[in-house]
């Protein structure tokens, strides 16, 4: 380990580990926190994009006459006259560069007007001619377009195989061979994607307020697209209304806003309508799973196969890495974890909270429950029995792994009693379920600066983005402790691409990546101050850090967070409506740096998992090629009434192989496994196994109408 990874001395800490309220709380409850569309530079105009209304083909003409004739309309950008863009790694950002239409909802024009109403009306008045070609948006088993990609999201190999899983499965005394289906899902952060861009032609400088998960990458991409030196681009994101992966990289809105400000010479806000998001900002791709588990009668796994089919778009390959958790979870010698993908005429999928783990663990943990049923074994004990000593796929030791402790602690807190029979209360069937959670530890290099002022206060600068995680707060805590000063002596500046480069708020790696840089900068400043004698100069003293060396070291450990979910549900035999009565999670995610914001993170993930289990459904319309559920009336994000008592707890985990703070990242693990626990509870309650999410009344009622044939 490098010297910098020694954990902070707990004895000296004042702030980390304490439930500090979020520092921007007052701004958020008084409405003074401004988000990207709420910047009001003088002469601001508004852009409204025009989505394609065919699923495949090309634009043959764009008639802007009527739109341009409307009062206050400044411009209509089309594929024929939009600014030519420089290169980008992400082809979904090559907007209005050619006439092809790769999916319905792809942007084919942008109307700009001096009012919001004018821009919308102008967009509606744009007439687009198309030449449509046949399209295919339906993923299915046996689709001729399925292929095994080189790698899947996260850079993992698409296919891994150990031993002979088929022979081991054939020889296993107890087997399950089951298929699950997870539909497309949408991030739907409450703040729709928005950007306010302001091109100052005189200064040759572009300023962009963007709703994003990291401004460094937005600046880099915009500089490339618009052929500007990076120091001529400033991207700001002080407050961001959620992202859940959908704002991890620049999305079309920000490119369109910059095109518009460059064309019109005025600041332009592009705030995407909610109905556009499903097609334009990424989604969790649907996954079809086949899981085969073989075991001895004592529950010892002898074979594990997890095969995943998914879709991507014709624009860009993105493969949801849903079979990857099978490489981490259980001790089994013979295994196969593999992905195949078909490129369809669909919107481009992208990151959504715990990509891979979320659908993958739904399938794997449901199959484990089915195996426990087949074995007549407590599903907690089945998981304990197969807890591996080393990471199954790599053979590396775990830096720390406390899944068993999470299961035990959760079972105690929940009152789990193993194979408890279902209860019946009138028309309600009640049952409980359990599932495990896992999420990898990621970290990326970051830079930070710390500055001591003569008045005894400190300014810490790090280009973190607080999308609601509490980053602003916990990074201030890290700084205060590293400086050895009270929290209120520290001011943190973030959300500004002019600061040293950092990675995005993603992969549950923000706090570790940014925090390490903050820690190092503050430690360096402390050293510098210790060597300084006499009063500080008027300009103060500064130090900076760059964790490129330390964060890139490949540790000899497998590093993952783990957790366990317990759910109690009721299924109404009259209506098929399922409601969660209790949800409890216990997590082992390294050191918890701020219990208040951490609890909110865990619970927030669990609630999103509840939605995945019960309410959230999106489907592609075969005839028209778009998502049928495009707004928040049709796409059912859970409401308050869906969410009962939810508890999150954690194991005190000391892992010296992570980063100076000792945390593993907590933004995503809360969703992983939650849907499986709820689904397993529904199975226990109803005696029926439903394998297609979400568990909506139509499906539950259909399952209940088939006579119960005993354990399934």
């Amino acid at each position, binding site marked *: 380990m490098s010297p910098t990874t020694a954990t902070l001395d707990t004895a000296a800490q004042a702030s980390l580990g304490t439930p500090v309220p979020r520092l921007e709380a007052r701004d958020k409850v008084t409405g003074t926190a401004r988000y990207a569309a709420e910047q009001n530079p003088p002469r601001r105009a508004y852009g409204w994009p025009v989505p394609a209304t065919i699923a495949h083909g090309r634009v043959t003409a764009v008639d802007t006459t009527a739109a341009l004739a409307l009062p206050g309309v400044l411009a209509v950008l089309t594929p024929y006259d939009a600014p030519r863009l420089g290169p980008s790694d992400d082809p979904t950002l090559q907007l209005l560069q050619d006439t092809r239409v790769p999916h319905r909802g792809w942007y084919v024009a942008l109307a700009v007007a001096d009012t919001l*109403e004018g821009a919308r009306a102008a967009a509606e008045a744009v007439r687009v001619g198309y030449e449509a070609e046949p399209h295919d948006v339906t993923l299915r088993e046996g689709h001729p377009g399925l292929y095994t990609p080189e790698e899947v999201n996260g850079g993992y190999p698409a296919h891994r195989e150990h031993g002979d899983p088929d022979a081991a499965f054939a020889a296993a005394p107890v087997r399950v061979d089951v298929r699950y289906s997870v539909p497309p899902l949408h991030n739907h952060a409450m703040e729709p994607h928005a950007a306010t861009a302001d091109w100052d032609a005189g200064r040759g400088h572009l300023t962009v307020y963007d709703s994003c998960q990291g401004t460094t990458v937005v600046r880099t991409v915009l500089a490339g697209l618009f052929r500007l030196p990076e120091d001529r681009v400033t991207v700001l994101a002080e407050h961001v209304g959620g992202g859940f992966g959908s704002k991890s990289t620049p999305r079309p809105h920000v490119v369109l806003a910059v095109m518009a400000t460059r064309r019109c010479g005025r600041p332009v806000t592009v705030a995407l309508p909610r109905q556009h998001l499903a097609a334009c900002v990424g989604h969790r791709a649907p996954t079809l799973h086949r899981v085969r588990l073989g075991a001895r009668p004592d529950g010892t796994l002898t074979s594990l196969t997890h095969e995943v089919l998914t879709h991507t778009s014709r624009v860009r390959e993105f493969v949801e890495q849903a079979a990857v958790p099978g490489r981490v979870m259980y001790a089994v010698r013979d295994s196969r974890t593999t992905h195949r993908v078909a490129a369809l005429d669909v919107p481009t999928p992208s990151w959504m909270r715990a990509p891979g783990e979320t659908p993958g663990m739904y399938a794997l943990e449901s199959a484990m429950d089915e195996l426990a049923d087949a074995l007549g074994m407590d599903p907690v004990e089945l998981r304990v029995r197969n807890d591996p000593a080393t990471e199954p796929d790599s053979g590396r030791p775990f830096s720390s792994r406390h899944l068993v402790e999470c299961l035990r602690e959760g079972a105690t807190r929940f009152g789990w009693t193993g194979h408890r029979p279902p209860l019946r209360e009138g*028309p309600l069937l009640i049952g409980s379920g359990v599932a495990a959670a896992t999420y990898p530890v990621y970290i990326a290099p970051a830079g930070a600066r710390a500055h001591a002022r003569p008045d005894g206060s400190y300014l810490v600068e790090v280009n973190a983005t607080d999308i609601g995680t509490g980053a602003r707060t916990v990074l201030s805590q890290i700084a205060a402790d590293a400086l050895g000063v009270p929290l209120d002596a520290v001011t943190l500046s973030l959300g500004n691409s002019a600061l040293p480069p950092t990675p995005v708020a993603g992969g549950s790696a923000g706090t570790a990546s940014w925090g390490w840089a903050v820690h190092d900068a503050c430690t360096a400043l402390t050293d510098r101050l210790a060597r300084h004698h006499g009063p500080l100069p008027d300009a103060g003293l500064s130090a900076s850090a760059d964790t490129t060396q330390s964060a890139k070291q490949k540790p000899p450990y497998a590093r993952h967070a783990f957790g366990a979910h317990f759910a109690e549900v009721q299924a109404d035999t009259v209506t*098929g*409506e399922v409601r969660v009565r209790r949800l409890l999670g216990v997590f082992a995610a390294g050191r918890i740096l701020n219990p208040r914001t951490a609890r909110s993170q865990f619970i927030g993930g669990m609630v999103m998992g509840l939605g995945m289990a019960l309410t959230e459904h999106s489907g592609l319309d075969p005839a*028209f090629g778009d998502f049928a559920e495009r707004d928040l009336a049709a796409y*059912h994000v859970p*409401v308050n009434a869906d969410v009962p008592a939810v508890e999150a707890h954690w194991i005190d985990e000391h892992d010296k192989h992570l980063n100076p703070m000792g945390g593993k990242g907590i933004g995503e693990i809360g969703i992983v496994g939650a849907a499986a626990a709820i689904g397993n509870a529904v199975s226990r309650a109803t005696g029926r196994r439903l394998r297609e999410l979400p568990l909506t009344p139509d499906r539950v009622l*259909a399952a209940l*109408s088939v006579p119960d044939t005993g354990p399934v």
Partner: protein
Amino acid sequence: MKPFAYVRATSLREAADAYAAHPGSRYLAGGTNLVDLMKLGVETPTALIDISRLPLDGITELPDGGLHIGATVRNSDLAADPRVRARYPLLARALLAGASGQLRNVATTGGNLLQRTRCGYFQDPSKPCNKREPGSGCAAREGIHRDHAVLGQSEHCIATHPSDMAVALAALDAEVELYGGPDSSRTVEAAHFHRLPADHPEQDTVIRPGEIITGVRLPAPVPGARSLHRKARDRASYAFALASVAVVLDLDPEDGRVRRCALAFGGLAPRPWRATETEARLTGAAPHPDTVRAAVDAELDRAQPLRDNAYKILLARNLACAAIATLAGTRPGAPATP
């Protein structure tokens, strides 16, 4: 959204005159659906005639013991009215099962009746829809139709009516009052206010151009009758009905037989669906679970489900049987088995 003129009417007559003077205009009350549809480009009025400030916001006693509900009474005020809660709990329940607190504060009685279907094809002007654009076709029939109608639909339209309130009004034998001009007023039974699509799905209701809903009349409650509203939905609140049922049941205290039953389904049809066949079979019968089920099935046997919405029949049957069993104090038959 296209620009439009705005007229705030101070009398019904002024409103009707303004409507006549502005071809392509629409009346506006709460606007929770109309403004939504204007943003979607489904409605493109040339003018809005604002009737929200007309003195139609009272709830008054009728001489026959019924209630008169003004057309602009807000859904939340109607649901909270002590007389409604005491005498028509069915109506209060149905209202409270719909939308959200803040929408109910704005949505009006008349507007609730006139809300349009939530069919995704209707709401998307880039797609065919006979209701929005007669003759363009019905995309839902072969498309996404899990939420669509199993009763009363036509080959031209399979959309459901989304209102919960209207289902209760249908079961309560309410009447809708319409103003068509100084000498032109009429009332229509709530159960027949909405029309079946047949060849003209663009006409949701029997309302004539320019007519204004001025109120709803509730007949006096049947003494001794009990009522119940129940709605099944995809989430616990703030979602449209997959199916719902409103039942008024009057049992003979002597022999326990059904003196009168009024049953309306929501979410199944282009209008609140009065189950007349069920009502006829139950009248005079003892509400034994088997009898109830047979009576409910007699109605639902008319259903014509599509590829993905047959579950609604089972759901509606379960809801109706459970509701009647609850009101009759009998145990329901085992639900959810064929």
